[in-house]
């Protein structure tokens, strides 16, 4: 596997095992994500994307293995103002205004007091909510609410962003704008791990992780995934990889089912 950028990879997962409700949700995963890229984590609902992201953020109990982020153990103290996190749930206070939410999270990130207002204004501009600053989040549309959530993760310019389905339920224009924002951030050196179950977002990523039932079916560039499978689009490539993995699983224990 190639690691772009110098130093340690953005994310280094080694032999990660996660058991939830007696089931091995991630049975043993090794993975490396280079810095400064937009990495798409794609797979069907329930395949373990959220669990993997929670491991990267250090909020998931794990049964074994290691997860390192920016060269440090996932979730450790030095990472807490360097990695922005957007969960699927909106994770902002719906009874506070947009500006109040962002100001609070800015304070929690220990952004110097005199810089908080400017930082909040900057982020509201990034997620296009400047005109809604005084609005209660609960009174906004779903798309606007998810942009508040994203804005909170952008405060303080983190080195890495972990975004769990940030574009779900957004209209096409908004989705395009967000992906443009992700590209801009990545051009500034930010690493983005973005999950989606919509395969057509794959083309916008530098690198793809195709996941199914806790196993990586592919870890390659979009072009590489297409070339390796001969499929016309990522959705077809995913399906062909699923079939291939099923065939390998049927064979008596010979080669490993991992596809690099």
């Amino acid at each position, binding site marked *: 596997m190639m690691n772009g950028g110098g130093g340690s990879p953005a994310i280094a997962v080694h032999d990660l095992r996660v058991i939830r409700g007696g089931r091995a949700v991630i049975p043993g995963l090794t993975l490396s994500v280079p810095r400064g890229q937009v990495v798409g984590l794609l797979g069907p609902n329930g395949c373990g994307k959220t669990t993997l992201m929670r491991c990267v953020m250090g909020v998931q109990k*794990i049964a074994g293995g290691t997860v390192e982020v920016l060269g440090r153990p996932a*979730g450790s103290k030095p990472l*807490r103002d360097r990695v922005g*996190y957007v969960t*699927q749930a909106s*994770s902002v206070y719906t009874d*506070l205004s947009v500006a109040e939410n962002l100001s609070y999270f800015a304070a929690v990130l*220990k952004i110097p007091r005199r810089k908080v207002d400017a930082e909040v204004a900057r982020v509201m501009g990034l997620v296009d909510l400047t005109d809604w600053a005084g609005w209660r989040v609960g009174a906004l549309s779903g798309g606007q609410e998810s942009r508040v959530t994203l804005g909170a993760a952008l405060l303080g310019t983190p080195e890495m962003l972990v975004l769990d389905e940030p574009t779900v339920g957004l209209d096409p224009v908004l989705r395009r704008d967000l992906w443009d924002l992700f590209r801009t951030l990545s051009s500034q050196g930010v690493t983005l791990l973005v999950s989606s179950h919509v395969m057509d977002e794959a083309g916008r990523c530098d690198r793809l992780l195709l996941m199914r039932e806790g196993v990586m079916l592919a870890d390659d560039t979009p072009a590489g995934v297409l070339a390796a499978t001969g499929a016309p689009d990522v959705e077809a490539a995913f399906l062909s990889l699923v079939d291939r993995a099923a065939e390998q699983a049927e064979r008596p224990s010979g080669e490993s089912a991992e596809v690099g």
Partner: protein
Amino acid sequence: MNPRLTMATASRVMRQVRHDHRTIVLLIVVPCVLLGLLAWIFNNTPVFDALGAPLLGVFPFVVMFLVTSVTTLRERQSGTLERLLTLPLAKADLIAGYAIAFGALAALQALIATGFSLWVLGLNVAGPAWLLVLVAVVDAVLGSTLGLFVSAFATSEFQAVQFMPAFVLPQFLLCGLLIPRDELPDVLRVISDFLPLSYAVDAMRTITVQSSATGEVAGDVLIVLAFALGAIALGAATLRRRTP
């Protein structure tokens, strides 16, 4: 722990409450109405003077228990807690922030309820009014910290509300309001010794009948505060960065 983060959290919680006008009105008006009702029912009897002060301690306890358990449950469920725990916020900052915010709210409630009882309803107590307010605030803080702790065991707001009768009513029955604690059956009296509300009510009773028993009241208040600190420690233990 960082004072700025604690205060930022406290002011955030207060802002949330401030946006919710109906809750504020309920917090302030309901205790006054209930005390007024009590005074009216026991008009021309000594009962209101005997029960008024202890109830001034019980109401903030009950109300703050409910408000805090629902608010923190919401925080746990909305994903904001998970986000906060990935940020440079210590658990102690979060809990202390909650305790300060609800403590301030409780102080407001206690001031108004006490003033209303003393000057509108004509409650007679031997001790000083400020001591009534102080004990009421400490009771409210106790309610907040217990609410924060039990919210960890609720998975829905329905359950959180049900914890109120489960945790609070037994304490209410045994705290000495219905019959004095030393007249309780032995087993129940021993149990009541281990319940914080007993000490809250003891303190209020002392203030009711004695004009200069500040030391005795201070002892009870310290016990209530110790229970509150214990609940904070237990509450902090239920806030886990890593969850299954």
